[in-house]
């Protein structure tokens, strides 16, 4: 079975084609600058060089049409003989509100529910919907599935998702924590279960980490998310590449007054000028910040410390929320990658490692291979608190030090 997966933005469509029997990627690509002069289509069939073209693409419908054309064009290394080979289409949909607790086969009712969530993600959901209607037109009859960023977190109890604001705001506008990166957390959790040798979800206390340019954690108990660090929007929680994460909410009103900022400027400041980039003044990329820190740049060092401290604090609080010793599988892109951080920690702490938690395969406690956490790029790792220690023992209490991450074998 061949599945086409689309992620539609305002002027972009990212796509991948999967062959599901062997679970392999056949091709990936991107349509950029839709509706603008010089739109581009980049197409990369697996194992072959990438194609880059500049066709006229006015809307998402034409983008999907161009994608299908190149996928079934033998002269351009198309991976399909015919577009009718596509058995299903998967759409990334950012916000599923409270309506969706999992992926959904798209029908009129599901479409209406996604439209109702436009208010919660005005910058994303409308474009995701454009991709759905484009496919409905050009791939008539092919089943389409919406995969929501928020759905995995919908198991959170009210005590975790409600903000302590007047309750009427929740009733009127659904102001609450939704969480994001749900597909990533779900994936990491599934990989963890596989690596744990078929461990039963109901026996697990797990904290999953998504550390990319955006960063989030999820606390999972008995297979259900009990808390997650992103909130009503992706701004809350951990320090990220360019986002500030948690703040005193009164602070922003104070800064807006002092600096005479409009709401739009304040929003941009918190989303694009903060985080690792804002504190370091160097970059939003952890590799570059670490390099600067290594050369004695105090602000870069501070940015790493603020990032790690916040992460450590969250892991500690989630250990408490889970009421037990958690495992922490993580997934990172290269931008906020872990290897450099963890290597630096090992170098710094030397022999103190024995005090803290031990990390390794859940069923091979003490294996403790001192390998890195993977190469630059996507990496995965499982870190586990030593069962003989209380959960706090896995956290180095000194300022500016991250959670006790000794070397961990890569799951993959």
């Amino acid at each position, binding site marked *: 079975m061949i599945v086409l997966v689309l992620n539609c933005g305002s002027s972009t469509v990212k796509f991948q084609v999967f062959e599901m029997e062997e679970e392999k990627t056949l091709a990936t690509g991107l349509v950029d600058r839709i509706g603008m002069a010089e739109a581009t289509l980049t197409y990369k069939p697996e194992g072959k060089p990438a194609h880059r073209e500049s066709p006229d693409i006015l809307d998402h419908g034409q983008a999907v049409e161009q994608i299908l054309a190149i996928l079934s064009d033998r002269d351009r290394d198309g991976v399909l003989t015919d577009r009718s080979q596509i058995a299903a289409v998967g759409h990334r949909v950012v916000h599923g509100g409270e309506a969706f607790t999992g992926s959904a086969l798209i029908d009129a009712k599901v479409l209406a529910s996604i439209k109702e969530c436009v208010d919660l993600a005005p910058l994303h959901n409308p474009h995701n919907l454009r991709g759905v209607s484009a496919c409905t037109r050009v791939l008539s009859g092919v089943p389409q599935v919406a995969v929501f960023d928020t759905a995995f977190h919908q198991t959170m109890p009210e005590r975790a998702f409600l903000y302590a604001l007047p309750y009427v705001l929740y009733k009127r506008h659904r102001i609450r924590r939704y969480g994001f990166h749900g597909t990533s957390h779900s994936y990491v959790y599934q990989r963890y279960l596989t690596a744990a040798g078929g461990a039963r979800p109901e026996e697990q206390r797990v904290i999953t980490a998504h550390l990319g340019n955006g960063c989030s954690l999820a606390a999972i108990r008995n297979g259900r998310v009990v808390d997650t660090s992103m909130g009503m929007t992706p701004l809350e929680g951990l320090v990220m590449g360019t986002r500030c994460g948690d703040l005193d909410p009164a602070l922003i009103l104070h800064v807006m007054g002092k600096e005479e900022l409009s709401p739009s*400027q304040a929003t941009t400041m918190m989303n*694009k000028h903060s985080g690792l980039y804002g504190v370091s003044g160097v970059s939003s990329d952890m590799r570059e910040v670490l390099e600067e820190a290594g050369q004695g740049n105090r602000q870069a060092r501070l940015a790493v410390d603020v990032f790690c401290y916040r992460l450590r604090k969250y892991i500690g609080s989630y250990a408490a929320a889970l009421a037990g010793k958690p495992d922490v599988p993580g997934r990172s892109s290269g931008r906020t990658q872990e290897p450099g951080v963890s290597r630096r920690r090992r170098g710094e702490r030397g022999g103190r490692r024995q005090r803290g938690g031990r990390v390794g395969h859940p069923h091979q406690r003490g294996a403790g291979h001192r390998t890195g956490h993977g190469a630059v790029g996507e990496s995965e790792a499982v870190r586990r608190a030593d069962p003989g220690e209380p959960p706090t023992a896995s956290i180095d209490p000194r300022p500016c030090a991250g959670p006790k991450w000794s070397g961990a074998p890569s799951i993959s």
Partner: protein
Amino acid sequence: MHFRKIAVVGGGTMGQGIAQVAASAGIDVVLVEVSEERAQQVQRELSAKLDAQIAKWGLTTSDKRAILARVHVTEDKAHFGHVDLAVEAVPERLAVKQAVFVDLERILGPDVVKITHTATLSVSEISQVLQHPERAIGMHFLSPVHRVPVVEVVRGLATSDDTFGTVKQLIAVLGKTCVEVNEYPGYITTRGIVPMLNEAMHMVMEGVASARDVDAALKLGFGLEMGPLGMADRIGLDQVLLWMESLFHELGEMKYRPCPLLRKMVLAGHLGIKSGKGFFVYSDPAGSGQPSAAPGTP
């Protein structure tokens, strides 16, 4: 309609602002100036304005790169190529605007929508020089264009529904709110604000209070973002004088007669932020426009 490329004639404050918001929305812009020298100056000014917005966290450096890559400043109208519509934003003088419209119709043909950016002039009068005035319409942004979310759209007598629809769609793409105004001098915003600016200037001239206190009272008293005199300095006192003269001439009412103090300041070259001195003095004309502690004239 998809807007892929538009032309903006006139790279002053408003022309640059319109070019910036269009480029931010992903539209390519040909910004036309009168000379190569002036084109280079406009490029520098636009870059400096974007830097000031970055300093205020409203933009990122990559936003700036993307915007500058989409705005092509030239002195040559023949380099338009195909554009989806054209906006003229040259100074508020009838003959100048008409000359630009005639040029645009000759170069772009009759079908391309031509927009005049004007606060006080008559769209019908400007577009009477066209062979196809049904493709002409008026539009009025407020300064600073990237911050003010409303745009007045003004139909001339001959403007077609199709032309109006195109401009309404453009404004939606730019993320602004469109208000439709019947052609009448000053529309809503200029006619509404001019008497307040004039009255504030009269208060200063008559010695009722200092410029700082007039602004403080009106700003804090009525929850305005800035006081009227600071606002006049920001708009440019020469521009405010032009508006007042135009409204006074068109409507004939004394409330629009320019305050003599305003006229005197303009003659002395005290034009507000852009000259460094107006009702307040400004240490950094290209910067944020914050008045310094020392009051300016008077």
